[in-house]
């Protein structure tokens, strides 16, 4: 709960550059446990703690990056924010309104305000529908009943994302990966949203296409005053696009800070290990990698205390017993969950890892 107070204090104190507006999305103690069913009666045998007590704010107009390795819960977090998955507990406040328990009908009215761009441009477009129907589906749900009106708006949006108007009658299989991703972006934007979850939007694309799509997202953000939650496992992409970055490990948010601060002075040993793994373009600069022992533990039975203690290079006794609080370290907008982030050992690690 103290983390919540600190966050609110941070918000009240005003955000550092670039100045952004009010909190558009407040996530508090968000938790999602998936049941693991087993046996003849499909009884709940265990729970996967996919997302556990995640708390953060997103401000209007900013891009918040969310990084972490596969299975850390970042994608689940994105789905939870859009209520595509029901949270186990916690609260979601979007534009000042608690949406945690809204009904299907109420959510339907809200959906145009919050949209998602998916990772896989091949799986995210229905192969049986022409592009016009794929992009126009949301408009139809939002009450744009006239076909001609939908077509006009879809065609406009196709041009906005760099495609031709006459693609409207074509099918997904006729497009390349980059074009498909543009279709996915158009589907989200045609509804005129304010908040967009971009779930690894460029991970499935060729490197040559990635920058095009990233630039498109950047341009659209300015044009439509969008707020992004940018989910990715690519630390460099996240650094490039985000103003603030959150790092997740095994369902927990372990660190969150302005991008420049996070990459310059990472506080959490896990963040430090991640950053030290980024290859540098400068061959004259030698760096020591922080190699983590073992693999990620199971989210069904996560380690006690700090979930990272089994692999942490600076772990002490207390780490396996007491869970560290997610609290400000050094400055009000740099939060981390670590007992020892202020000690000398951690500072040393941070210097090794810093890339900015």
């Amino acid at each position, binding site marked *: 709960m103290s983390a919540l107070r600190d966050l609110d204090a941070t918000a009240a104190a005003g955000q550092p550059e670039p100045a952004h507006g009010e909190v558009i999305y407040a996530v508090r103690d968000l938790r999602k446990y998936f049941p693991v069913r087993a046996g003849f009666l499909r009884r709940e045998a265990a729970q996967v703690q996919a997302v556990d007590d995640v708390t953060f704010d997103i401000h209007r107009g900013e891009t918040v990056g969310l990084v972490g390795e596969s299975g850390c819960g970042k994608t689940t977090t994105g789905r939870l924010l859009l209520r595509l998955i029901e949270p186990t507990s916690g609260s979601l406040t979007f534009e000042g309104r608690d949406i945690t328990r809204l009904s299907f009908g109420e959510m339907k009215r809200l959906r145009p305000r919050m949209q998602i761009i998916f990772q896989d441009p091949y799986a995210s477009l229905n192969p*049986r529908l022409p592009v016009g129907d794929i992009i126009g589906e949301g408009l139809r749900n939002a009450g744009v009943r006239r076909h001609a009106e939908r077509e006009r708006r879809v065609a406009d949006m196709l041009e906005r994302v760099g495609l031709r108007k006459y693609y409207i009658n*074509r099918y997904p299989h006729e497009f390349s990966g980059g*074009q498909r991703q543009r279709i996915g972006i158009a589907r*989200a934007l045609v509804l005129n949203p304010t908040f967009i979850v971009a779930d690894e939007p460029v991970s499935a694309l060729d490197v040559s296409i990635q920058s095009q799509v990233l630039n498109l997202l950047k341009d659209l953000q300015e044009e439509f005053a969008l707020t992004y939650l940018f989910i990715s496992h690519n630390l460099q992409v996240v650094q490039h696009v985000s103003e603030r970055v959150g790092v997740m490990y095994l369902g927990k948010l372990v660190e969150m800070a302005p991008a420049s601060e996070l990459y310059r002075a990472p506080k959490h040993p896990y963040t430090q290990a991640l950053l030290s793994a980024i290859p540098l373009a400068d061959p004259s600069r030698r760096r020591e990698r922080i190699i983590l022992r073992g693999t990620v533990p199971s989210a069904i039975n996560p380690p006690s205390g700090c979930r990272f203690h089994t692999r942490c290079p600076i772990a002490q006794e207390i780490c396996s017993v007491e869970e560290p609080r997610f609290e400000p370290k050094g400055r009000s907008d740099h939060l981390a969950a670590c007992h020892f982030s202020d000690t000398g050992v951690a500072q040393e690690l941070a210097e090794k890892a810093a890339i900015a």
Partner: protein
Amino acid sequence: MTTTPVILQPGGAPAAPAIDFETTSEIGYYSLVWRRFRARKVAVAGIIALTVLALACALGPYIMSWVADLRHQPSLGGAVDPVNAQLGPFQQGHLLGTDDIGRDLLFRNLSGGRISLTVGGLAMLLTIGIATFFGALSGFLGGIVDSATTAIINAILAIPSILLLVVFAKSFGQSIQTIVIGIGIISWPYTARIVRSVVLSAREKEFIEAARAVGTSRARILTRHLIPNALGPIVVSASLTIGQAILLESALSFLGQGIGIPTATWGSLLHDGYQALAHPNGFFFALWPGLLILITVLSFNYIGDALRDAFDPRSLER
């Protein structure tokens, strides 16, 4: 997949063309499927064979009774000579010969084909209808609906189908309706399992999540996204089901439990021919319906196979 070459400018970002792929022609999904299907010559031959057969069965008997009384009904008063009544092919103007009481076999086989093809077609429609409904709901809703449907499917599959059909025909009358419904009941589980599995896997695709994200209702997701994606397997299954239904009807008639005398079906003709095998011309009596069943079922199977390949998403994606 081809990618546009990236021109790196000194000190700048890659020059990004607005369109990253050359224009392609406008082809719908189903025209692609048709194009791939057309390439399979056996399947096209099957379609031609079935069309000819269906037209012959539909129109043949009319034309024949109009041109001449080729039915060669023996006069009721005269004694039927059992040896000389059964003619071989081309004898006395009977193209395929006659049966043991002198009826023209071409006429009998064509009018029998009407019944067999009708039963096959109707049973297929019923099967696909039931299977799509229960299969899609079961895969989409999961939980108790899925468990219940799966239990019913397993129960039906555990009963020998011919036995069930015989009992069903005996209990409710040996009419076309009864036999169509009976075949529908024993055939739908196979297709339902296919539809269920396709819906089950399509349900987890990102485009379903995308539809939910834009506020599409569950009913519309099922009808607009899931069932169209199961259409390929459904069509394949439909084609194979007709063949199976015709075989089932023939088997039932061969056992003497099919549609009653004097209506001919391929199965009952096969049965009569089998009884007449001792006669020198009996071979042909049994040959014709067997050949027609073979051609029909083989055609439907080849068409089904070709459809399966044509619908295969892996062959459609680049």
